[in-house]
């Protein structure tokens, strides 16, 4: 009887195609993605079913969480210009170097007096918990209002556009804090804003 011979096949697989696919995906991800920016005040945004996209330009984000309020602007030119206006208002002076460093900061939450110290810090130290307290937003020292105003003027001057405002609140934040922020905006006749939310289905 003839033995059934097992054909000996090579265990090697041709990896070329797989390699091609892997690199294709890799280049796709490298090109389409923007790196996650560490936030100075991480918040857990509540979910909603609405899918309005947040605009990318001429936007300020007011982050509210834990009773603290942080402020973030989009665009380096707007940041630099707004800082100039704040400096004028609070009689501060910033060097060119400091203005440049400030324009690279995405979001911050310190009183105007401590801005110099914040700018001097390294970016990883800046985002540590407890380093940034909050922007004062009570009626005695309403710096949030000044910042919004400065950002509005800056956007209007540089881009000839109306500034859009997004509120990013922590889900557990109590309503009075949010109300205060909304009131500050309404005092400047900003009646339309975006609430940053997560996504969910209607079935909840």
């Amino acid at each position: 009887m003839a033995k059934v011979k097992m054909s000996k096949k090579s265990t090697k697989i041709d990896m070329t195609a797989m390699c091609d696919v892997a690199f294709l995906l890799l280049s796709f991800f490298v090109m389409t993605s923007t790196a996650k920016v560490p936030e100075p005040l991480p918040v857990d945004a509540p979910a909603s079913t609405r899918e309005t996209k947040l605009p990318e330009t001429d936007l300020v984000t007011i982050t509210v969480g834990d009773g603290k309020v942080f402020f973030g602007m989009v665009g380096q030119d707007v940041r630099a210009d707004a800082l100039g206006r704040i400096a004028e208002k609070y009689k501060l002076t910033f060097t060119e170097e400091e203005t440049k460093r400030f324009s690279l900061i995405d979001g911050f939450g310190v009183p105007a007096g401590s801005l110099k110290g914040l700018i001097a810090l390294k970016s990883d130290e800046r985002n540590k918990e407890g380093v940034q307290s909050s922007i004062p937003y009570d009626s005695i020292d309403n710096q949030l209002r000044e910042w919004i105003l400065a950002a509005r003027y800056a956007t209007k001057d540089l881009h000839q556009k109306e500034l859009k405002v997004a509120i990013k609140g922590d889900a557990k934040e109590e309503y009075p804090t949010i109300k205060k922020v909304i009131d500050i905006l309404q005092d400047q006749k900003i009646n339309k804003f975006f609430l940053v939310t997560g996504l969910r289905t209607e079935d909840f």
Partner: protein
Amino acid sequence: MAELNTGGGDSKGKKVRSKKQDAGVDLTAMVDLAFLLITFFMLTTSLSKPQSMNLAMPDKTPEDQPPVELTISEDRTLTILLGEKNKMVWYYGLAKEPIEGPTVVGYGKNGIRKELLSKIKSVVAKYQGNSEKGLIVLVKASKKSTYRNLVDILDEIAITKVPTYALVDITPEEKAMLEKEELLTK
């Protein structure tokens, strides 16, 4: 693999033959690396922009001016009071003598959404064909309600397509209503 043929002296007469090498390269390590990088990029990047919700508030009337009086029929207004413990109280009509309610209800499709849908229908039936006279929902958030509650109720309003809604300050009367239902502690 990588040999250097020095062509030493002992094989003088023979022709120097170049070795036939296998043209295939082992790509396994390269694929490994590529997938590692893919995973890294997938995890560290945020592909999608954050979602958002529009909120338009009415103009504030300056304090030195008298508030604009609007007369609206009481059977068109539904008031929702947001309390703590993720619950709310709603009533239909006036606060002093509600036509329906006040009733405690939760969020979600089995809670306030049912009420909203039924009220929208009944108001439409009452004012047949008059598309300008739809339901008006007043949302009044108490001090103890959270931002999540606010977004949830605005979302509910968006889902049920309430024609008119507004975010209004709570009155002492309504606070008492919430306190009675134990949804507002001081």
